[in-house]
């Protein structure tokens, strides 16, 4: 046990004495999340909305009043016909156009389906998506008020269409995605670098020619990073919660447990990389390109998995972040419990065991020359 403690203490010394490691560990995640949070938050005020009201009745006026008094939106003028819509977008000032179909109020009063169309400029997808969300929310609440007064069930169905960007990136999607990406990268990158650094220095030779067993060496390496990456995960969660208003609807304990599992997985992946890579450079290259690119492109972080060719869907299935993102979204946004994510959890657990086993097996008791 004292051997283990001294291994861990030594590792902490390395970490705290290396500004570069500290920067990667804490600087980058915080920066990433802050940049993201800032970009999303700062934009969501005074969004210009133009209106094409083909009905002009009491209902449309009340809905518009609610929208423009919400504080998020500015009235950018009325449009007379559908041809004017694209002109409005081209000015760049109008981010969304609200279209009420003709006889909207009458249909509503008669209990028929009344359509409102929200057209957004999705070249800024976060704004577009948030706009849709807010406007739909306002319309729904109006619907709720009316429902309280009349017996007739009201059906206002907002239809929205995104222009300029078919692949929409959801804002709520982005934080779990960033979190999965950052934790994976940092954990894998730092452990693989710290092992290969010892290879380069020659200290690994002496460690190997000692009574320490591979599992002891690996766990001693990983343990400090588990703690640090976990703190890191907490920081990201807190930032997401306070700056980005990301809800944590589900069980916090479950969330943290999943976080721990994912970190362990990433760390064992890092060790596995370090058993293959001969130098710090190669380790860095492998961590960045083998892990980052597929994670960004294939984990469902940016591009929806359902739209991918089948082969890419299969590849996506072996990417841990894909499953972790699902878990995060389920717990944080939907408030689901373990019953809903046990499948994904089991996959992550399996992957962790495989990677850890492979790492210990591959972490040779001898030197590879």
């Amino acid at each position: 046990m004292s051997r283990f403690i001294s291994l861990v203490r030594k590792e902490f010394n390395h970490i705290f004495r290396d500004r570069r490691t500290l920067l990667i560990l804490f600087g980058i995640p915080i920066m990433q999340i802050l940049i993201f949070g800032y970009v999303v938050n700062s934009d969501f005020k005074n969004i210009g909305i133009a209106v094409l009201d083909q009905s002009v009745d009491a209902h449309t006026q009340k809905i518009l009043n609610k929208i423009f008094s919400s504080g998020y939106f500015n009235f950018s003028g009325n449009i007379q016909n559908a041809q004017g819509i694209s002109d409005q977008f081209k000015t760049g000032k109008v981010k969304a156009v609200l279209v009420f179909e003709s006889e909207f109020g009458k249909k509503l009063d008669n209990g028929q389906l009344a359509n409102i169309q929200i057209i957004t400029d999705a070249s800024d997808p976060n704004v577009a998506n948030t706009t849709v969300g807010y406007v739909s929310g306002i319309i729904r609440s109006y619907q709720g008020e009316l429902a309280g007064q009349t017996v007739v069930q009201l059906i206002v169905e907002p239809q929205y269409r995104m222009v300029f960007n078919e692949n929409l990136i959801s804002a709520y999607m982005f934080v779990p995605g960033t979190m999965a990406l950052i934790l994976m990268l940092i954990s894998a990158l730092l452990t693989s670098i710290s092992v290969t650094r010892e290879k380069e220095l020659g200290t690994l030779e002496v460690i190997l020619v000692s009574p320490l067993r591979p599992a002891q060496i690996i766990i001693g390496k990983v343990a400090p990073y588990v703690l640090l990456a976990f703190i890191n995960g907490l920081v990201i969660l807190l930032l997401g919660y306070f700056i980005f208003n990301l809800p944590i609807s589900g069980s916090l304990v479950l969330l943290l447990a999943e976080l721990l599992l994912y970190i362990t997985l990433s760390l064992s992946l890092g060790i596995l990389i370090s058993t293959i890579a001969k130098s710090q450079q190669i380790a860095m290259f492998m961590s960045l390109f083998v892990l980052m690119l597929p994670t960004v492109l294939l984990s469902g972080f940016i591009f929806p998995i359902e739209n991918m060719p089948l082969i890419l869907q299969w590849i996506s299935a072996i990417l841990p972040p894909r499953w972790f993102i699902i878990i995060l979204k389920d717990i944080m946004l939907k408030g689901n419990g373990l019953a809903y994510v046990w499948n994904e959890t089991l996959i992550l657990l399996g992957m962790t065991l495989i990677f850890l086993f492979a790492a210990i097996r591959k972490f040779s008791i001898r030197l590879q020359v």
Partner: protein
Amino acid sequence: MTAESKLGCRANYFWSMNSPIVECRSISKKYGEIPALVNFDIDISAGEVFGMIGPDGAGKTTLFRILSTLILPDSGRAMVLGHDVVKDYRYIRKSIGFMPGRFSLYQDLTVEENLKFYASVFGVKIRDNYHLIKDIYSPLEPFRSRRAGKLSGGMKQKLALSCALIHKPMLLILDEPTTGVDAVSRKEFWDHLGTLQTDGMTILVSTPYMDEAQRCGRLAMVQKGHLLDIGKPDEIRSRFNGTLFQLTSSDRYQALLICRNSKQISSVHAFGQTLHLTLADGVQTEFVENLLIDQGIVEVVIHEIPPSIEDCFMQYLT
């Protein structure tokens, strides 16, 4: 030997005191197509300071890595402390001290942290074995909280040796411990090895510097994976073929060129300010003197000297 391993640690130690500490039988190792060691045989007894002398690529590091169980030989059999390097690597790892080519210190840890770390890896306390490293480590005491990366070459070497010694190994394997270190530290280092030997430590050490050969009890001269010669320094020197002469003159380089072109001179090598040469059968030193004087070289002095290890080494190469 199989019976031995059942006797436990203490019995093995006793046993190994009377048998070779290291036994290599036709060890071979290739890296791809390049042979690093070819049919290598070596025996090292308890209490010896055994030197491996040869240039880069001679196979010194490969042999040391095989003996310290870091790599496997392609063929042959090696026993360290009576244990097989392939099968009983755990026992060997516990019992040897290994110092690889580059001083394997954690540059970002302090002197004391490095020592503590290596002690704890082997599960020992520094104070238990402090007597072993006292002479070597005490000059470092004032710098105990300095980072290892900020030490001079000589101090790094002392610290690395202390770290390799702290668990009281039965065999110390040192790979080129004096490379890149200043002359004073090199001298001190060999003095320390001498002290350790007096305390009964067996030491296997390699060096590219021929002038350090004389400090070894026995040595192996190696080149390209082959053993050129093995024995006590004096034995090796006594096997020198022919009589060696030292020549000083007014123009060493010119004299070297003249000697090289003469059939009567069988070998000539520059040696610091002088030349070392051997003569063909029946050729007298007067011949060389006259040869040089005829070509305008003055102050020619030639006399017999005992060959050095380097002379012997070169004789094997040419």
